[in-house]
């Protein structure tokens, strides 16, 4: 089997090969580590490698497999976004503040994926503290999109998305607070799922906005995402917001049967902000689902427009509280020779945080400050309910809501860096889904001038199965998810 066959194989195929001992996890791990070592300089997608530990874990997985034991993920390599705490392995969150932070424990997601037998290759670059839609805010430098090295990969899980698209791993983890899995998945031509709020434990994920943050899988297909989601999900005593819901075998539930599935098309998602060529690709993807038996139904989500304003109060407010812990005392960056306690706080934080993080802390502090709390934070939480109720009403008549994941394909680096509001508009179709706590995924829907487009599917709370199944059907009937960038091992 050639390297490029391995790099193109689905998780199910890899599992069959591993279980049949046609390939070892050690060989697989070496193949992927080799890819990263050869090609990462061009992308800057991976910022920490765990080669030695990965090979040890791979050999252990091989032992398990040779006993005829294991499960669909045993011996499969993966990369983690550098927002997940990994015991003894530096976890930076893309920030100078945590440049040398080595957590004392693993995030629950890391523990669960380890328990499922996966092999951690390393950690992926990301926007600083997950704040950004282009992966340009990382202290460790911008990440490049393997489809066009002059373009951004999206953010904040842009390192994860670029790494997956480039063939650095068959699975990667991401987190999504306002679109940070779905938008980079769209811009890098991969499949990424943000689960229902509460589906996946947040313990050990460096907190950004606690009522919005969710971790999820990013992979080459809906089926691969489903395998990973099953391993990641479940109630956790360490996260009191994790949901006490049974976790189905998401992959086993994929039958591709969508006869009679009611897909809502919100008029507000096809507005003037949407690139007409993206609209065309999205409509083409929807007609594939229609031919497979789904019914397309026009719906309204009348308060969609307010999602950006609502999000940019709630997320910074929660972030300003969460990031108050970085004080230069207990962990993280500490300034040199502080003259007094005040100086220690001020300089440690100003030196440790980048520009976008500081801007959001300022906005959040303002929104929570005396005299403005009601006008901003309370008001935004009220509008949040109105936005969530739009979705609840729509889901009385439809099973899935579909639209674009992002208004455009990947843009050039630097194009939106000077204007925070223009950057925020990147997430116009994804933010509301986090506000309502619903599951959403992005699946490839073809290319425009060689750059990927993503179809977003949103489901009812805790119904990831239905959107995964619709994406699975799309991927049975089209080959968009098998398209690869002309990069590295995929170069023609």
């Amino acid at each position: 089997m050639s390297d490029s066959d391995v790099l193109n194989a689905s998780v199910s195929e890899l599992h069959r090969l591993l279980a049949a001992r046609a390939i070892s996890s050690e060989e697989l791990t070496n193949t992927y580590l080799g890819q990263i070592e050869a090609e990462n300089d061009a992308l800057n997608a991976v910022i920490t490698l765990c080669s030695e530990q990965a090979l040890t874990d791979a050999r252990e997985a091989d032992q398990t497999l040779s006993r005829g034991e294991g499960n669909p993920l045993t011996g499969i390599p993966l990369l983690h976004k550098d927002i997940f705490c990994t015991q003894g392995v530096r976890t930076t969150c893309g920030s100078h503040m945590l440049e040398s932070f080595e957590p004392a424990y693993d995030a629950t997601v890391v523990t669960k994926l380890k328990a499922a037998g996966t092999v951690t290759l390393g950690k992926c670059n990301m926007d600083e503290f997950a704040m950004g839609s282009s992966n340009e805010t990382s202290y460790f430098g911008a990440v490049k999109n393997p489809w066009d090295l002059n373009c951004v990969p999206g953010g904040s899980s842009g390192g994860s998305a670029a790494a997956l698209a480039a063939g650095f791993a068959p699975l990667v983890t991401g987190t999504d607070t306002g679109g940070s899995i779905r938008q980079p998945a769209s811009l890098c031509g991969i499949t990424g799922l943000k689960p229902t709020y509460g589906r996946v434990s947040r313990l050990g994920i460096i907190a950004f906005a606690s009522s919005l943050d969710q971790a999820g899988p990013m992979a080459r297909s809906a089926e691969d995402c489903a395998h990973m989601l099953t391993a990641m999900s479940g109630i956790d005593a360490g996260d009191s917001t994790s949901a006490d819901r049974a976790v189905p075998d998401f992959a086993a539930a994929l039958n591709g049967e969508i006869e009679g599935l009611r897909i809502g098309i919100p008029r507000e998602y096809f507005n003037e902000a949407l690139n007409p060529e993206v609209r065309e690709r999205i409509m083409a993807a929807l007609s594939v689902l229609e031919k497979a038996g789904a019914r397309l139904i026009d719906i309204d989500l009348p308060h969609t427009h307010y999602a950006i304003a609502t999000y940019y109060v709630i997320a910074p407010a929660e972030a300003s509280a969460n990031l108050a812990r970085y004080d230069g005392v207990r962990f993280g960056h500490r300034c040199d020779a502080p003259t007094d306690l005040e100086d220690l706080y001020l300089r440690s934080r100003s030196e440790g945080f980048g520009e976008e993080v500081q801007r959001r802390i300022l906005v959040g502090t303002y929104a929570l400050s005396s005299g403005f709390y009601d006008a901003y934070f309370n008001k935004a939480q009220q509008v949040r309910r109105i936005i969530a109720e739009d979705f609840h009403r729509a889901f009385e008549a439809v099973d899935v809501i579909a639209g674009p994941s992002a208004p455009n394909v990947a843009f050039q680096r630097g194009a939106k860096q000077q204007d925070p509001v223009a950057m925020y508009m990147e997430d116009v179709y994804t933010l509301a889904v986090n506000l309502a706590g619903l599951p959403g995924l992005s699946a490839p829907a073809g290319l425009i001038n060689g750059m990927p487009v993503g179809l977003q599917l949103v489901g009812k709370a805790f119904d990831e199965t239905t959107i995964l199944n619709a994406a699975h059907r799309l991927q049975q009937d089209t080959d968009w998810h098998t398209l690869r960038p002309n990069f590295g091992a995929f170069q023609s």
Partner: protein
Amino acid sequence: MSVTPEDIEKVALLARLSIAESELPEVTERFSKVLDLVDELNTIDTDGVVPMSNPHDMTQRLRADTVTSHNAREALMASAPVQDSGYFLVPKVID
């Protein structure tokens, strides 16, 4: 609503961030742009709407008050930038 550089200095102090004098005009301008964006919320009627802090309106789960994790003091202290004898060190606060 526009804000003044003085407003920004006050908020920065509350957030324990220091902004260089030379950067203040630009920070103020970009902050104002974000505020203009979020001021759109004032155009929507929210009378009687209960604020939503959790998307599923979940409340905190309770558990029995029993010890669930081991003492990891040394492992956690290892992350401290400056420490001595099991204490976090800070500049002198009392003369």
